[in-house]
């Protein structure tokens, strides 16, 4: 049977078409990957957002190599120890640039103009990154892992978390570290970046309208104002 010709008009009842059209409407390609930025995006502080993503890429890359070879590999090979060091320092860099990024966004009050969800996803990424790192520390299979796990258990047990998240169980912690928590971080980062692209980078405070100690820019309901992000 010969293939039927391509449909001339999309089927309005197709779920696929509906998802595609909603996606393109919310985030058209030129907004998703812009080739222009507002002129106010001109400070070194803006580097720390992309540096956070870059660190995450290096973490996942080095972590994937460690996962491919298994959890014990890095203890008895020089190459393994090298990749473990890359992984560890990328984590340190990730937290450093992410904290600077968060402070920068705080001082910009970057939740303004309908960007509340951008702030919330960013804050949650930091909070989810903390147990992601902790599960890495307790999966090291060395003295650090022994000590950190026996200490961390008390805090987690005290709030009942230890009942289902046992830091002294290497197998469970390794699963959380290499799959579940990184997946959560990547999904959250993806949502955060898409929200940034949807709403654009928060514009500066307007100087002439700034009365000292008066109600000023603060959160608005998400989607109330969609600023920037448009191509010149």
């Amino acid at each position, binding site marked *: 049977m010969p293939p039927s010709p391509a449909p001339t008009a999309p089927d309005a009842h197709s779920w696929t078409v509906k998802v595609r059209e909603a996606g393109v409407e919310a985030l058209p390609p030129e907004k998703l990957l812009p080739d222009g930025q507002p*002129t106010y995006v001109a400070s070194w502080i803006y580097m720390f957002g992309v540096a956070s993503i870059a660190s995450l890429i290096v973490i996942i890359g080095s972590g994937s190599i460690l996962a491919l070879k298994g959890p014990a590999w890095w203890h008895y090979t020089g190459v393994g120890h090298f990749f473990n060091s890359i992984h560890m320092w990328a984590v340190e860099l990730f937290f450093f640039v992410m904290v600077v990024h968060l402070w920068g966004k705080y001082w910009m009050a970057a939740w303004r103009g309908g960007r509340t969800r951008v702030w919330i996803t960013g804050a949650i990424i930091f909070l989810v990154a903390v147990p992601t790192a902790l599960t890495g520390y307790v999966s090291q299979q060395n003295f650090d892992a022994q000590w950190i796990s026996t200490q961390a258990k008390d805090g987690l047990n005290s709030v009942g978390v230890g009942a289902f998240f046992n830091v002294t169980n290497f197998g469970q912690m390794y699963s959380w570290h290499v799959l579940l928590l990184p997946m959560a971080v990547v999904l959250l980062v993806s949502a955060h970046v898409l929200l940034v692209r949807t709403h654009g980078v928060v514009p500066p405070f307007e100087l002439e309208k700034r009365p000292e100690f008066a*109600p000023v820019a603060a959160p608005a309901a998400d989607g109330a104002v969609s*600023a920037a992000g448009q191509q010149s």
Partner: protein
Amino acid sequence: MSRFSRMIHPKDDTQQWKGRYYPYDLVKELFIAVGVITLLALVLTILFSSPDDKPSTIAQWSQQKPADFTTAAVKELDGTSPTAEYGPPYNHNGTGQEAWIIKPQKWLGVSHPIDTELDFVVGPLETIPGDPALTAALAQYKTAPEKQKKEWAEAYAKPLEETATAEEEKKTPPNTVTESNGTVIVKTSGNAGPVPVMMTSLLAMAKSGGVDGSLLTSKQFFQTDYTKPLLFMADGGLLSERAQEQHLLGDQWGMMNETGSYPGQAWLWLYALWYQVEPFKSSENADILVMIIMGVLSLAFICIPFIPIVNRVPRWIPIYKLIWKEHYRSEQSA
């Protein structure tokens, strides 16, 4: 809109940007950033590497500190060790930590059951074959009433605990405990029944590595759960002694440190801070109190856009003038 609504959700005059744009290559920027971070991680790796101190084992512990091992083991037997008295999620021998009426440790119950007497002492000893003295001692111990078992274990534990306390307080210990060729001889004032034979056998088994294996493979051949050997070791002094040398104890901000002079989990500084100050420092419920505080602060961190005053500070303290210096300068010159 009520006054409260205005406080948490004040007027937002942020406008959509109608000004100029400059050419910008997002993908190129990402590639450059990955290159720079990779280079930085590479330089730090070459300069500092990463720590990897070998783990301790029960065999090492029993060889290096036989009296400490025996003290911990007999406390597991008489139910006075930290693990034996822990409560949930390991056993019902304690209530766990609580804050006012909040008792999640108790509510969640025992999910990883550990009977220190059976799991750490009697169970491993039962795997030793061909030792008639031990077999007889175990039979005597297992058939004795609970009160008798307790009296035997306490009679054996008393001199060990007195010696440990004296050493901790840097006083001269009594001559009731002596170490000779890796064995521990305990002079008891009361009747310790079969406990001396059991402890001597357990020490010998531990030195050969048998207890490490026994605690790991008690359920199945393939094993990844180190809860039992870790808790047993944590009841002794070897791990904490190593931790103190590596500045990892709780009062040394240990929660955020790692071995060597590496930065560790510096992002846990606020969590570690509470353990350094009163009333948390000396509280029996320090862990749950600190976790509750950190939970509230984490929620506040997420909700910053809705917190009055905190959400206005960026407007009042003009750090934004530094961030958007170029923008304001070009606006004024225009």
